[in-house]
Each structure stands twice: as structure tokens, then as C-alpha cells.
């Protein structure tokens, strides 16, 4: 019987989609062996209201930790609290998101517990006493099968790999206190600046419209913003050249040293397809490329390519997408 712990990430009191992905992944593993799923959610008072949602996606129990000192990410208090809960829970696996928060939290917890951690996991299976995970290495050019033998095994799941599926369970709420005093943490998040709430995150957007050197300047990203708005569910990405030039913020960079994304649709505009960029987006489901150079490497991996002047093509595409959506 494999009991599984799932860390349900929140921000600003809101449950993030990756939190439901963690519970979905946990439910699938637990069901193979008749185990149970404990979801863990922490934040400012009121965050426990999401317990119902976590139950709907498969949590047998929801551990709720509410404290004013957990309103913003509090790495030290959260790591201590999560480690304590996992230590007391006899779990085979503890699942974290491979997000900005999860990538910071999971290694702390692993070190406290003295157990193995593999992040950016794309698949999980049990094999006797071992946990077998798939983890891309060498910027996604090689897939590693990794065997984990610690009890529990800690894994960070890659966003968008475990589509949330409703699978209702009781979701009995168990309230717990933080371990230690959250206000005594040495590392303190003083301020969080978020873009407009309408802006989708690159890791979660179903569609990404991405621009490269071919855009020629920051002002021309308006073309991509219009195309993204036509899709309605799109985020804007960029290549390293674009962010190094300061045309877009570094947080928009997709690639080996930026974000790794796997949207349903990736539209590469004025992007030649350098290896560094392909590393961040090659697992996208459908790739569209628009580039004036028909020899550009991006066309080798694009499902659909159009050769030509992006300044002519993109506005026509924007209009066509708008029309298709209005008929849709």
C-alpha cells in the first residue's frame, strides 16, 4: 500500500493549477496499490477553504496549516512544517511542484529528511519497494529513467504533465500548526510583485506566442500581444537574445537557461531555433513557426511552418484566429 503526500501550492491565497496536478499524480499512484492521498495546504487564515477542491481531485485527507506568517512564501517555516508532516506520515512518495516555490522548498525538505529527490519529473511508477521516475537530462535531449529507494522518495513534477482529473474523495480536514515560529524565519520574502492578474504564466498557458530576434525591437512585440489576445488563452515568450537585449524581461525567456514549457500550441515568430531555445519548448504539443529564412532550424521541428515576412503574416494570422474564435 502506497500512501502519497501531495503539496498543494498556493499563492496569494489562491490554489495554483500545479497543486491539482500534484493531487492528481498522487491519486493515480495511490490507486494502484490501495493507498491514500494526503494533500497539504498552507497559507494565511482562510486558505483551508480550498480543501473541498483538493478532495474533488482525490485527497482522502487535507492537512491545513493556517498562519498569518505563511501569507507569503516562508521557506524556512514551510520546509520545517512539511518535513515534520512527511516524517510522521509513512509515505512512499511525497510530491512537490517543479515551480519557483517547489524548486526552492523540495530540496530543503529532502535534506531535512535525508531522503532522495528528483525534480522535473514527467512520469512516476512503482516497482516493488522502489519508485521509478522519468526525468529529462542534458537540456531535454536525453530522457533518464531514475530509480529511487529512499522512504519516502521526494519528487517534483513538471508542470502540465499530469492533467488534473476529478476523482472525489472524502477530503477530511486535519488542521495543524506550523513547526516553530514563522515570524522567526531568517529568510523573509518582503514583497511580491505580480504582473496583471490577467497575464497567464508561461508554465500554465495552453498557448504561447513567442518572439525572437526577427521582431527587430521591443515595440514590435505589440504584434505578438495582439495575436495572444486573439487566442485569448496565450502567454508571451521570448528567446535569450530578446531578453538579453532587454526587449522583454528575463522572466519571459524560454530555453536552456530560462523556462521549460510544454503548451498545447507554441507559435514561434521570428525565431531561428537555436539549440538553447529548442531545449525549452521542444516538448510543446503543436509547434507553428513563422520565419523569413526557410533554412532556419525551427522549421525542422515545427509541425506547421510559414516562410515569409512576419510583419506581413502575423496581423493576417491575428485576424484569422479572431474570426475562427468568433465562429468557434
Amino acid at each position, binding site marked *: 500500500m502506497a500512501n502519497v503526500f501531495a503539496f498543494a501550492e498556493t499563492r496569494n491565497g489562491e490554489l495554483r493549477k500545479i497543486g491539482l496536478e500534484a493531487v492528481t499524480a498522487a491519486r493515480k499512484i495511490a490507486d494502484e496499490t490501495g493507498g491514500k492521498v494526503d494533500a497539504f495546504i498552507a497559507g494565511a487564515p482562510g486558505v483551508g477553504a480550498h480543501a473541498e477542491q483538493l478532495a474533488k481531485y482525490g485527497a482522502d485527507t487535507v492537512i491545513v496549516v493556517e498562519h498569518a506568517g505563511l501569507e507569503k512564501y516562508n521557506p524556512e517555516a514551510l520546509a520545517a512544517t512539511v518535513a515534520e508532516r512527511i516524517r510522521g506520515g509513512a509515505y512512499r512518495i511525497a510530491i512537490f511542484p517543479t515551480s519557483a516555490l517547489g524548486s526552492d522548498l523540495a530540496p530543503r525538505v529532502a535534506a531535512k529528511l535525508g531522503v532522495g529527490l528528483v525534480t522535473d519529473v514527467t512520469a512516476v511508477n512503482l516497482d516493488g519497494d522502489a519508485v521509478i521516475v522519468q526525468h529529462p537530462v542534458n537540456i531535454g*535531449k*536525453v530522457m533518464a529513467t531514475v530509480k529511487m529507494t529512499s522512504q519516502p522518495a521526494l519528487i517534483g513534477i513538471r508542470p502540465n504533465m499530469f492533467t488534473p482529473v476529478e476523482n472525489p474523495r472524502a477530503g477530511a480536514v486535519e488542521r495543524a500548526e506550523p513547526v516553530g515560529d514563522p515570524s522567526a524565519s*531568517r529568510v523573509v520574502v518582503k514583497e511580491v510583485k505580480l504582473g496583471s492578474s490577467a497575464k497567464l504564466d508561461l508554465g500554465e498557458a495552453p498557448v504561447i506566442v513567442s518572439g525572437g530576434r526577427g521582431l527587430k525591437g521591443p515595440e514590435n512585440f505589440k504584434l505578438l500581444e495582439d495575436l495572444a489576445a486573439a487566442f485569448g488563452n496565450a502567454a508571451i515568450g521570448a528567446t535569450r537574445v530578446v531578453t538579453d537585449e532587454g526587449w522583454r524581461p528575463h522572466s519571459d525567456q524560454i530555453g536552456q537557461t530560462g523556462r521549460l514549457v510544454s503548451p498545447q500550441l507554441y507559435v514561434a515568430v521570428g525565431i531561428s531555433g537555436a539549440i538553447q531555445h529548442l531545449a525549452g519548448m521542444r516538448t510543446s504539443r503543436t509547434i507553428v513557426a513563422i520565419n523569413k529564412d526557410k533554412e532556419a532550424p525551427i522549421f525542422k521541428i515545427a509541425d506547421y*511552418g510559414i*516562410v515569409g515576412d512576419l510583419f506581413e503574416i502575423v496581423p493576417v494570422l491575428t485576424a484569422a484566429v479572431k474570426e475562427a474564435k468568433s465562429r468557434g
Partner: protein
Amino acid sequence: MKIAVCIKRVPDMDVRFKIAPIGNAVDEAGLKFDINDFDSWAVEAALQIKDKDSATEVVIVSLGSDSVQETIRKALAMGADRGVELKVARIPFDGLAIAHALAAELKGGGFDLILFGKQSADSSNGAVGAMVGELLGLPVVTAISKLELAGATGSAKREIEGGQEFVEFPLPAVLTIDQGLNTARYPALKGIMAAKKKPLDVRPAQLGEQSVSVTKMELPPERPAGRIIGEGASAVPELVGLLQTEAKVL
């Protein structure tokens, strides 16, 4: 100020990898190796502190086989003061085992800052820096793209999904470096000459117990060959049609 920078030697990624006959590693024949990108920015961050305060000592630590000496020498050529090789026959995949070896070396070293790159390009687990901080009981801030120090306090910026976090922490601390903090300098000829004479100690790595191992590596299935559907704006209607009927994403 005393700063340790932990770096990793990784293969150049701009190649078509082959799987070694052993089946759980890539074939290293013909690969070029260099300092991991994120780690080069960690070295640069330390050197920029040294540029402002020449009393700063920058120590490079790298776990690996003797081949890492070349990579350590590069960081010394950039301007670091001395290096330590934590010798292993082969770098294990288990981040916690590595973190134990690094923590054993760094413990009691009197470092004000211990810097890492955010993650390595090869094993891409992004865990060792924070694990070392935790094992040493030090404050940890990961994936920073801006850093300011004022006496015994630091402030840093972290990129998060759709925004930024501004974090304060006391020194000594462990930091992991993201893109955007700086651009790494190239070693000058004078630096390359000087690096040859800088101390580089070799010690056996005291790896922790390993519970994570790679059993198989394989090349992911290739994407089907790309298809150019046309030229110019006249190809747009066909594209939109394919997105609707074939790809079903519109």
C-alpha cells in the same frame, strides 16, 4: 569577505548525444566540457564582490574526476583565488549524496557566502545548493537574479511565475544564481597565466549515502519532421484550418 563558489563541469549541449553501451549514461567520446552556465554567473557574482573589496577571497569547489581541474582553472583564470577538487571517479546523480560531500568541505570554512548556479545543464535537478544550505544550517535563497549586500544583510530578487519576489536574508548564507544577475567575464591572458600558479587542492569527496540512481538513458522520440505549408500571408488560411481540424488546438 570569504566566498565559496561551487561549480560543475558539464558537456557542451550543442551536440547530438549518443547513449553509452552501459545504457545509463551518455557516450562522452568527443564531447567538449565547460563550466555550467549558471555556475559561471555564480563565479562572476563572487568576482564582482571581490572587484569592490580586494580583501575578498574567492574559493572554487568542484566535485568530479581529475578532469574538473581544467574547469576550476578556468574560474581561477577569471579571477578566483584558489580551488578545491573533491575527487570522485564519477559524479553521482543523487543530489543529496553530492550535497553531503560539499557540506563536509565547506563546514567550518568561515564563508560569508556560498554560491551555486541554479541548476546544472546535464542532470538538471536544481537541488544541491539548497540541500547544502540546509545541511549547514544556513539561510538559503534560490534562483536569484539580483543581489545587494549591506553589511551582514543581503537582499535578492527571485523570478517567480508571472512576477518577482524580493527577499531579505542575513549572512552567512547560501545563494543559487539564476540568469539575469550578470554576464560572466572571459579569462584574460594574464589571468590564464596567473591561474596556473594558484593553489588547487585535491581531496577525496565524502559522498553521502546514495538512494537515487539512473538505470537507463535513452534519446526521446524525435518529433516528426517539420512541414512548411506555404509562403507569406496567403498560407494563413491553411494554417488556421490545420490548427482547427488536424491539431485541434483552435
